[in-house]
């Protein structure tokens, strides 16, 4: 027995989607084990459709594992609750509520705090995501990037232990995406929350992650776990993307990913392989 259980422990996790009349059973996750520390920013990177999103959803309690377990702060994950906050790629802020009301909605089902505290929390996150000026706007009057900030603020307002983000910037334009990446790093530094961030964008992964977990094509197996934090220390900014270390890490990750995609015979030789 160790004294302290890891913050998140995924052990021996496999997932098979049952077949039916329409399709065969699909093996999506193959025996994945992983420990995540408190406050750690983890990126799940893998080819599209590899099962990384499903793995994250199992951590969030939105899918059941076929075998294996997930523990969060020593407690077995059996279903979704407010300790595991989700942010989706699709816009999920509610159109019938204003920006502020959406964020306040995040606190609605908490009974550990008073109404006054709920309002304080909502205002805090409203400010943190930089939307104070838009507090009374309905969310379909604001841009996609702002809607994702509302979604992040709402999730944080629920007071989760871990933030699970499923390609949250996938539908945004390049500039907004970079802006939100920087913003997200700032938020995670201030909030000191563990994050699992799913993406198939290599540059995004290297820029955001403390550690990148690289997955194979389906069924998802861990191919490599790469610590970015060890190489790029200190606070990151957009300039980080211009540094030598960043290029090196990005190329390495890209090559691993390319060879994983190659398993499916889709793409030619990896970059810099001389072929």
């Amino acid at each position, binding site marked *: 027995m160790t004294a302290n259980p890891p913050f998140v422990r995924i052990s021996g996790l496999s997932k098979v989607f049952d077949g039916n009349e329409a399709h065969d059973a699909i093996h999506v996750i193959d025996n994945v084990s992983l420990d995540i520390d408190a406050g750690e920013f983890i990126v799940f990177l893998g080819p599209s459709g590899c099962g990384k999103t499903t793995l994250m959803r199992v951590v969030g309690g*939105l899918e059941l594992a076929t075998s294996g377990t997930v523990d969060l702060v020593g407690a077995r994950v059996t279903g979704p609750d407010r300790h*595991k906050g*989700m942010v989706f790629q699709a816009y999920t802020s509610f159109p019938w509520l204003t920006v502020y009301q959406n964020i306040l909605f995040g606190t609605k*089902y908490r009974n550990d705090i008073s109404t006054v505290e709920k309002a304080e929390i909502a205002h805090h996150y409203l400010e943190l995501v930089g939307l104070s000026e838009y507090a009374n706007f*309905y969310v379909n009057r604001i841009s996609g990037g702002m809607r994702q900030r509302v979604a992040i603020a709402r999730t944080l307002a629920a007071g989760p232990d871990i933030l699970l983000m499923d390609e949250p910037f996938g539908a945004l334009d390049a500039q907004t995406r970079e802006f939100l990446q920087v913003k997200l790093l700032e938020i995670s530094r201030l909030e000191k929350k563990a994050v699992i961030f799913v993406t198939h964008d290599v540059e995004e992964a290297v820029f955001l992650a403390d550690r990148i977990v690289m997955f194979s094509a389906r069924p998802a197996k861990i191919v490599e776990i790469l610590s970015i934090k060890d190489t790029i220390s200190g606070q990151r900014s957009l300039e980080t993307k211009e540094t030598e270390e960043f290029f090196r890490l990005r190329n390495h990750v890209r090559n691993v990913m390319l060879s994983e995609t190659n398993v499916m015979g889709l793409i030619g030789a990896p970059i810099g392989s001389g072929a």
Partner: protein
Amino acid sequence: MNFRGLFVYRGSSTASTEMLVGAGAFGVFFLAWYAIVAVGVVPERFLPYPDAVVKALWGMFANNNFIEDVGISVARVWGAFALSVIMAIPIGIWMGSYRIVGAAIEPVVDFIRYLPVPALIPLLIIWFGIGEASKIAVLWMGTFFQLVLLIADDSKRIPREYIEIGHTLGARPSQITRDIVFRSMLPNMVDNLRITLGWCWTWIIVAEIVASRSGIGHVIWSMRRFLKTPEIMAGILTVGVIGLATDQVIRLIARRMFRYL
């Protein structure tokens, strides 16, 4: 006023311009009507002048206590409609929420939905008599089974992410239903209710023609016996005006309620 936009493919215009167009169309309709009678294509006994219809309407209100029949029909429509709505909303959402409820109820509802309501009227009269209960039953049969499926479909169309957000914010299913599903489907629901209310007017006239001593349908039917075409058309006109007015009021309320759309 923006007239040019009216003629652009998928163009847009202002509300006041469109209102003007709508009023103009009504004007053209009445003019054409007037012209057809004036030219003598149709004998006046079958198609009276528009003003004869208006005069007949005035006479019905002044001498025949028509307002009471209108009131009775409106009360029947709203009573039956309210009953349908109160039942269809919770049952429909319930059908959309749990497959066991949906799988059990959908085939039954689908079957009854295809039964022609007029064919059921004799049976409903045997069961409920010729009083108010049988009218309510006819309207209810004609609307509930359609409405409940529309509501169930609407509730199923909520994005899955909305439900999952509810779960991950710590909401119980009943709270997700109340705070997310219901709120999310509300604008669509109001549209469906508006359409269903229109059907009620079809069924109330049918029911009142078949078996009633009061109501607009009864008035229309008894005037037929004396070939009082203006009065018949006045009755029909009344239904149209009530329908149009109700629809506009509901639209106005909806626009206020759903400012975010």
